[in-house]
């Protein structure tokens, strides 16, 4: 099966004053359709940078990212934006909802940006909110939603366009354990029910254990991975400890 995402020899450098920080140093990664992949590693290993490059939120210094065989580096600014709008869903640690929009409107944002008809937008937003269990909160603005509810709204927004891939950057990092569990359940369900491909950056072994595969990064490279079924938090912690040696 063709991979849905393929990153080849990916490099990313950041100038920080007089020093150049190498966030990624020739990283290679492939992800199959419908896979739920966790990306783990110590701080500064390049996890979030990898996610941003895969999502077209940043541009690689060198190397290539392909989404369904389309090279992101070959796209101009406008096409990249359209790709983000229609083909990629992103969930952030701090929810990143627009404060003046209701839950329904936040979910519908990609469709609104695409100029879709109001009826279609409303229907799909209602469906997406219903799927994450927040149909009755659709008219609430973010300040009237709990952290977990806001993150579910963010997830609904990421899923509404039926994207090729959902990228989640520490989606449970700002949530209590119960809310975090709810979000992880939804991500798992997205893979199982919708055939969604999900990449999730996480520090939490318990969250990683919910995935099909865990990729470990260190110093901007993939150094190991473990696969399910039957991944447990203990196995992941063990794998992490092994990497420190």
């Amino acid at each position, binding site marked *: 099966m063709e991979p849905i995402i393929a990153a080849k020899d990916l490099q990313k450098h950041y100038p920080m004053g007089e020093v150049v920080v190498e966030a990624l140093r020739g990283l290679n990664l492939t992800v199959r359709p419908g896979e739920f992949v966790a990306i783990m590693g110590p701080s500064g290993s390049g996890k979030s940078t990898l996610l941003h490059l895969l999502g077209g939120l940043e541009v690689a210094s060198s190397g290539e990212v392909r989404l369904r065989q389309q090279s992101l580096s070959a796209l101009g600014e406008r096409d990249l934006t*359209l790709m983000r*709008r229609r083909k990629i869903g992103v969930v952030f640690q701090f929810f990143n909802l627009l404060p*003046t929009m209701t839950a329904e409107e936040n979910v519908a944002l990609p469709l609104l940006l695409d100029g879709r008809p109001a009826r279609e937008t409303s229907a799909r937003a209602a469906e997406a909110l219903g799927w994450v269990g927040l149909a009755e909160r659709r008219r609430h603005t973010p300040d009237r939603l709990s952290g977990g509810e806001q993150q579910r709204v963010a997830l609904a927004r990421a899923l509404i366009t039926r994207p090729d891939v959902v990228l989640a950057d520490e989606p449970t990092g700002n949530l209590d354990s119960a809310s975090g569990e709810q979000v992880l359940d939804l991500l798992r369900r997205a893979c199982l029910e919708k055939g969604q491909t999900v990449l999730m950056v996480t520090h939490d072994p318990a969250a990683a254990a919910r995935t099909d595969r865990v990729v470990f990064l260190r110093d901007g490279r993939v150094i190991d991975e473990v696969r399910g079924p039957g991944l447990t938090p203990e196995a992941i912690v063990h794998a992490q400890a092994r990497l420190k040696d």
Partner: protein
Amino acid sequence: MSPSLRLALRNLRRSWRRSALTALAVGAGVATLVAADLISRSVTEEIARTAESEAITAFMSEQMNVGLTVVGLVVMAGAGLLTFNAFAMAVTQRREDLGRLRAAGMARRQVLQMILAEAALIGAAGAALGALGGIGLSRALINLVQQTSELFNRFGSPPVSIPRLLWAGALGVIVALISAWFPARRATAISPLAALRPSETGGFERPAHRLALAGLVVAAGMWGYLAVDPPGLWILPPWSNVLSMALGALWLLCLLLALPSAIDLAARAFRRPLTRILGVSGRLACDNLRRARSRVVFTVLTLAVAVGMIVGVTGYLAYWFDELFYRTSEVVLQENPGLGFFPINIDAGLAGYTGLTDFTLPEGLAGEVASIVGERAAVVESFFVLAPELSFLGDRYFSYVLDPRSIRESGPLLFSFTYGDWDRALEIADRGCALLLTPTVAARNHAWLEDTIRVTTPHGSLDCTIAGIGPTFVGASIISDAGIAAFGLQAPVGINVFPRTPADRAAILPELEALAGRHDGVWMMDLARLTEIQREGMKSVGTVMDGMLLLAVFSAALGVVNTAAIGTSERRRELGILRAAGADRAQVSRILITEGLLMGVLGALIGTLAGVGLVVVYVVTSAGAPFGYPDFPAWPAALSSAQPALLRGAVAALAAPFLTAAAAWLPARRAVRAPVMENLAEARRGW
């Protein structure tokens, strides 16, 4: 160097754009004040060489200085609003920075000193820019007026007044300090914990609609009263001035109370149509106007002040020139224009005064004129003097010295009675010095009909009795011919001839023209033409004021750039969210530019409302009281004066949105070009 000053300098460097724009706004205020003084002194520097020419022209300099200084103070007030807004937003923007400083041990007093030091440095930079700019501005405006005015075609080059420079510069610094004071105090209250918690940009802020409602009710009550019983029909100076100022202030207060609600309602009203036209960008732009209320209110207010001034000054000048000064003369001169003999070529404008050493007509000329016209015309010799007690505006408005009998024969052009009559007035004039005044001058001296005013002359005091109160020509007080000896006047400055009929005029005109031709340094002119030149000249004052007021608009535009930039900077994360969700650069730019456009529309509309309202309040409250016109049509005059003001407002309403949209474009461009993740990052850099 103290840590506060060191940090202040660092902050200025870090946010150099904001600092520069704020300094420019302060500089605009200082420049206007410096230019006001230079322009007004340059009007009379070259021409006030004799006592007579000084008497005629001194008021121009004084009134121009007063008027332009008021404009300068308004521009400075606009700069104050901008500075307040800029510092208020900067404190919000730097909340985490300030929290870190407090966490590191910076005392509240040091935080206060740091921010006030920034303000003082910005004020000082603005003062320096303004001092230089004021000189350039005065030159530019003088050139403009010289090119466009028939009357004001010659200006002197007075030296820069150091006291004015220092005063204006100091005011710039003080305004910057006062404006930054409250944000600085707010900054001292920031907790060290602010460093640990990222600030969130807020959702909708609900305005206090009750305040708006109160404002509307009060305004409705005020307008209802003015419609039913315009005070101008019964009130006299100085109370007319007091009441018009009080009611004008009340009108502005009502608008201010209603402003937040008006913005909220306008944003709601524009939401659907703009969403239809611009998609989600239009909708978000409208929503953003309902957040960060103080930022939006202050930006709209800064614009409204500028537009309101332009509109108000236009209406005010229209009222004075069209409804008051020339109310009588326009009719009289159309029916039977008189003729005047003058020692200068008035058609040459102020250039005709240059080099003049004798501003009087030849001795005996009045007799020659009288012998030509006989019974076919009234002949009035005019003398001009400066008598501070009788000054209609300020202290240096000229007064006439005229023979009352001649005035009576000449018709209503020079004077007509609202209080008193000719028989009694002539009796008073026969006994000694008689005065014919407007109610304004009488009220200034706390005197009325048949009271005595002690007039200062170059040769001592002269007790004069008020013989009549009513409208005079251009408001100038009239002293009877007893003043000729008292002021030591040798020869008249003008000889006015008022033919009794048009046929008489046609008959005497050729001989009078020939008479003028026989005398060097004597020009004859149609009085209608003279009045026209005077009106045009006074309207040139409006041109100068417009030039100054454009600085107010410029300052307001700077305010929009500043607040748009800081607002964009505050919302970088939101812009990043939009870009991450798939908004393209054009869509994000449209949000910011549309916000600017909407603020421009609102500022222009509110400013127009304020300005027109002030004009109508003023006219209806004072009506013809300054001049003493009987049965003055207060409301028709108000509406007539409001028309040119409204036209100006309409131009502003068309132009301001483009100006503010353009002003919002620069920070918008900067924001959308930044990488998506840079916008989403927690740390925000300053503008």
